[in-house]
């Protein structure tokens, strides 16, 4: 992997060349939060943001998309080409890149590769950037605080410069196109990178133990904890809407009033929704709210481990930030582990970094 560096003062010039690789999206302010959107100027780009409201998943699995159109006279029209818009996502945190790598396992490398997802992945360049964790991040516990693939370039703050990891040939093309903006790093730059890397690891205040969690979930399948959490959960689905790795979707055919043409629409769904497990005949496999919130935890922390060898949670903290009822995953896991009471007063699980 090629490693270079760029002066921070010249990053605006470097970003100016990125639209040659696709529409530029970057973290910008949206109300009191942040969102990946088109910046109107360099000053719109927020380099020090804790997390965006929605993860980059929205670019690869859009909230709503037409997969094909149909017409009685013209037949089917594939809308795959519309999915292949060239984009550049600038300033993506490691856990969100990790989230995309997890989605790849399901949508690009699984039994049923999704051409729409794959087209978007291939046409989207990703430039990562490091970040300082806040009290809701627990990406380190999920081994998603650093990432070694899934990006074209990755920027790490080393003071007056960013160290630039070049991850792909597309990233290398960006470097070449920018002329002489990037430089060779020195041994002192590497030493500074290592020093800051250690500091970032130590900055995680929120931690959760993953070891044997699938087994403990197996033991606690009938735990009262799920009913207790369900008394607070509103089934609003906010946690899954903001999750980098939630990918449940619904499919509906929307037919025009004339009944001769229409589109097949794929849209986000949530396992917290009461209709998520509703099937023909009226049977609902997860009628109760407790069963639905339990399903979400078991899928992320147990089912995904069995299928793919790791949980699908990346520790971004968005679900806790978005929950209007104040439910947070750390408290639920530590309660299940018997290390906190049902009110979330933890005895372990949250540790100040020393």
């Amino acid at each position: 992997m090629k490693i270079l560096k760029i002066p921070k003062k010249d990053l605006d010039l470097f970003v100016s060349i990125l639209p040659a690789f696709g529409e530029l999206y970057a973290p910008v302010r949206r109300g009191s939060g942040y969102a990946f959107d088109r910046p109107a100027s360099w000053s719109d780009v927020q380099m020090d943001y804790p997390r965006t409201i929605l993860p980059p998943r929205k670019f690869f699995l859009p909230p709503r998309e037409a997969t094909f159109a149909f017409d009685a006279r013209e037949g089917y029209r594939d809308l795959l080409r519309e999915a292949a818009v060239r984009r550049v996502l600038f300033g993506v945190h490691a856990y969100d890149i990790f989230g995309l790598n997890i989605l790849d396992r399901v949508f690009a490398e699984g039994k049923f590769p999704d051409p729409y997802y794959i087209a978007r992945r291939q046409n989207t360049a990703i430039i990562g950037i490091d970040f300082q964790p806040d009290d809701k991040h627990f990406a380190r516990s999920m081994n998603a605080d650093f990432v070694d693939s899934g990006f074209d370039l990755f920027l790490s703050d080393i003071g007056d410069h960013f160290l630039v990891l070049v991850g792909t040939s597309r990233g290398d093309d960006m470097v070449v196109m920018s002329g002489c903006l990037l430089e060779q790093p020195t041994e002192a730059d590497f030493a500074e990178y290592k020093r800051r890397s250690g500091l970032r690891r130590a900055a995680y205040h929120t931690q959760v133990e993953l070891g044997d969690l699938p087994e403990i979930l197996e033991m606690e399948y009938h735990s009262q904890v799920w009913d207790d959490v369900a008394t607070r959960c509103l089934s609003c689905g906010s946690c899954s809407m903001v999750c980098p790795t939630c990918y449940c979707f619904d499919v509906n055919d929307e037919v025009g009033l004339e009944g001769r043409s229409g589109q097949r629409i794929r849209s986000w769904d949530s396992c917290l929704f009461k209709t998520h497990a509703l099937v023909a005949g009226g049977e609902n496999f997860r009628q109760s709210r407790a069963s639905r919130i339990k399903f979400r935890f078991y899928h992320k922390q147990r089912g995904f481990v069995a299928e793919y060898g790791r949980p699908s949670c990346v520790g971004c903290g968005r679900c806790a930030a978005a929950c209007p009822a104040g439910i947070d995953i750390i408290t639920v896991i530590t309660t299940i582990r018997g290390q906190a009471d049902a009110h979330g007063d933890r005895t372990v699980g949250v540790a100040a970094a020393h």
Partner: protein
Amino acid sequence: MSEPKSVLIIDDDPDFVHAVGELLASSGYQVSTASNGREGLDLAKRLQPDLILLDVMMSERTEGFFTLEQIRDVPALAETPVIVISSIYSDHPVFKVSPEAGWLPASLFLPKPVDPARLIAESARLIAASAATGAHVPQAGSSGR
């Protein structure tokens, strides 16, 4: 008699805008001006000029680049000839700005101070070629660097 061709100048330097505006007006162009990227984008959408002269370093030193991207996002302006005119090379001699560098979606780059005769000649060439083909006109010859 045909309508005069229109040129929009987007630049935050009033002296440059005045001088180049007078130059273009005396050559028969209808000239509009904007002093920043946002105002320039709004005017470009409204007027749909035959040519845009765009500065780079305005309130931010890459403002012109972002403005150009937004201009290209407007379907009616996607093929409008744009001449980027800037003194960015005096600040950053290693940074390749010309369309030949492969990333700048402009027709031409001219460094400041601009040669008036060349500006008039290139403006006429780009407008004529755009009118003839209805397409974005690639740069002819060197970037002037």
